[in-house]
């Protein structure tokens, strides 16, 4: 059986209430959930990952196409991470227009510092685009925000990141 076929069988068993299969689905998704939630929820990332995994496992019965597990789980996790980040964010994030300009010594700061200057929704779009490879329209739709707004607000942030990564 292919990996895809095995995964689909696992999801279907979990949907039927098989606890061991549910635990295996959890195993399969653990690293990805950590990767999706980290850049969005930052200091609350571990809590967000737990909340995201709960939402995924509880919502699994509603997944119609088991082969779509990762895409569906990513959407659930990203929304949960944004929700947790917004709930616990203690400081109002700065507008993107106040991001340091290219060449600014602040850009030498680590990625966590730069991410903390964005709203959770913008961090989510940035992660979906630059880490997961989604196009802007898909990322915006997943987050239920207008694609045009996303594009203009994130262009500068992406340029800053790219400069850092290539340094």
């Amino acid at each position, binding site marked *: 059986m292919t990996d895809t076929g095995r995964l689909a069988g696992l999801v279907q068993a979990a949907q039927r209430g098989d*606890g*061991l299969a*549910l635990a295996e689905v959890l195993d399969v998704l653990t690293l990805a959930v*950590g990767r999706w939630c980290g850049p969005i929820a930052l200091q609350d990332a*571990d809590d967000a990952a*737990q909340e995201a995994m*709960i939402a995924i*496992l509880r919502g699994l019965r509603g997944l119609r196409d088991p082969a779509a597990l990762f895409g569906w789980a990513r959407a659930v996790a990203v929304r949960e991470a944004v929700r947790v980040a917004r709930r616990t964010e203690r400081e109002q994030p700065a507008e993107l227009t106040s991001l340091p300009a290219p060449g600014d010594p602040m850009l030498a700061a680590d990625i966590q510092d730069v991410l903390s200057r964005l709203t959770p929704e913008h961090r989510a779009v940035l992660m979906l685009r630059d880490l997961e490879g989604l196009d802007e329209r898909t990322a915006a739709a997943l987050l239920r925000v207008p694609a045009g707004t996303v594009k203009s607000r994130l262009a500068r942030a992406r340029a800053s990141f790219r400069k850092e990564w290539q*340094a």
Partner: protein
Amino acid sequence: MTWPVADLDAIRRLRALAAAVPGAIVAETVIDAPFDQVWAVAADLEDELPAYLPDVRSFTITSRDGERLEARARGYAGLRARFDVVLRPGWCVMRSRFLLGGMAAFPDGDQTRFAFLGGTHLPAQRATAPALALAGRWAGPKVITRFVDRVHQRGAG
């Protein structure tokens, strides 16, 4: 330069699993013993599980393939069940026809964070009261106390 990554440790994963299983309970504690000492008890299902689970008289491993085990449990109250088990350091999930059991642990300095899960993996409407009660006992305070006692006894021995 790397993106920040969330850490979904074993106990957070066990909590997530419990949240999706009807009637499942997670009991957590911090054990004043190193991880290896704690997990030596947790992983020794045949010898140790009957010592801390009041409903289990014997737990016999019938096959082993890597981290996947099959086992046969016998209890004092007529319980006979075949279990499928996934066992690896810091993580154990056991499934019979009605029950779901689990253990998770990770080191925290010189101590160990540890959790039990007890639940039934039947759909909520089919989960009987006795099954839910048994699942609750699996993660009850008495089991935690007995388990911690076994860790310290084994450490002293």
